[in-house]
């Protein structure tokens, strides 16, 4: 798959980004552009900084140095401007993080009503449409704890989409799921990618990376080591670290 033709500016731009956790240097000079409509999969061993990279894009992790822009706008400091920008950036977490005291439908409607000031009936109608799209409209009135992991994650994707985000961030969306539930979530994500959503996906799902990604970014020790097309990355990785990583995960 080739990246679609794009107009400036890139949807996500990271320039010279550094981040430390105490003495640990978790992001080292990260430079990354994600174009509008592009699907970028971030791979790498655990502890390589890929989750931190994903979370820094909507400032759930503040960075120490460098610059991050969303659709040409620099990421603001804390406050209302940051909240407004976050509303345009959808995020899906490893642990789903659905609001435990709200039903599935309420989870999806809440932010459109409270943040976007959409009327409750309109928000509800849109929520039901999204829940149908991810295949769980029959679960709308249940609480998150009553759903399977795969259903919860699909609800979380619907919740993020309800804000009509410009870009979606996925932080290991299938890592907490039982194996038989991984596919249903990946199917939703693949459909989303086909529709032209700009996506940055941190994952261990190589099949998804091959099928849906325009680009694969490989991280190790806080650095971006490779940034290439999926075919090239999987068949002819350039760096030793990528070869080593692929050797470990593709042999079994």
């Amino acid at each position, binding site marked *: 798959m080739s990246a679609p033709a794009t107009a400036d500016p890139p949807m996500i731009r990271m320039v010279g980004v550094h981040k430390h956790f105490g003495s640990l240097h978790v992001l080292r000079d990260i430079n990354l552009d994600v174009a509008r409509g592009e699907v970028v999969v971030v791979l790498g061993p655990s502890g390589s900084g890929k989750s931190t990279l994903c979370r820094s894009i*909507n400032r*759930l992790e503040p960075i120490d140095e460098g610059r991050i822009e969303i659709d040409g706008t620099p990421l603001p400091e*804390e406050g*209302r401007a940051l*909240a*407004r*920008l*976050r*509303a*345009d*950036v*959808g*995020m899906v*977490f490893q*642990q*789903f*993080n*659905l*609001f*435990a*005291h709200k039903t599935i439908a309420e989870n999806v409607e*809440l*932010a459109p009503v*409270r*943040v976007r000031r959409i009327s409750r009936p309109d928000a509800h109608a849109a929520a039901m449409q999204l829940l149908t799209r991810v295949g769980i409209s029959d679960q709308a009135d249940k*609480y998150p*704890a009553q759903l399977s992991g795969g259903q919860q994650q699909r609800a*979380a994707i619907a*919740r*993020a989409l309800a*804000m009509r985000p410009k870009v979606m961030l996925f932080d290991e969306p299938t890592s907490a799921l039982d194996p038989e539930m991984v596919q249903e979530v990946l199917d939703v994500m693949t459909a989303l990618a086909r529709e032209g959503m700009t996506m940055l996906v941190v994952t261990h799902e190589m099949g998804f990376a091959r099928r849906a990604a325009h680009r694969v970014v490989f991280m190790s020790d806080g650095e971006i080591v490779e940034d290439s097309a999926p075919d090239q990355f999987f068949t002819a990785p350039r760096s030793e670290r990528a070869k080593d990583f692929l050797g470990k995960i593709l042999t079994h």
Partner: protein
Amino acid sequence: MIQLLLDNRDLFITGFLHTILLFVLAGLGALVLGTLLAAMRVSPVPALRLLGTGYVTIFRNTPLTLVFFFFAFAYPRLELVDVSFFTRAVLALAMYTAAFVCEVVRSGINTVDVGQFEASRALGFTFSQTLTTIVVPQAIRSVVPPMTSVLNSLLKNTTIAAGFSVLEAGQITPALSERGAPLLIGMFWIAVGFGILVVPLTATQRALEKRWSVAR
């Protein structure tokens, strides 16, 4: 025994009515102020955090009688708004209890998974929206038992107002002794009165716990 209660029913009725009024007003004040203080203590603004922490440190570590002394004797000298003893008693109780409410609410907030904060922030909720819509409604569920204890203490603490010319249940005993009535029996009825007042508190706790254990 009953005769004492009937003979002095004016005392008992006025006393306990004032106790209930003190409790309800100070309780509401403490819940509102305490929740605000808890919000300050978990807020991202360092100045607010400092203010909240300072308040709790001062009021939690000051004996309640001292707070009452302040409102009874020092407050008039500040020459602010002149208010009745009763209002000052409400203020003293509310401000003192708010420190405890704050800590109970804050511990409740700490039981809410950090992922709930993150999901809320990631959707574009402001800090105050995150607290009021997502975090506090979940925190409240885990604070019902300790909050009931705090309100229980408040109910009993209202008797201190007796020492500062507010006619409430704690004033009944001295008033009875002036009338020459047997004190032990008087105290017995006061204990019964407080026992009855605690019942709705405990019942509310039970009801809330039951309701929230189902809807989750």
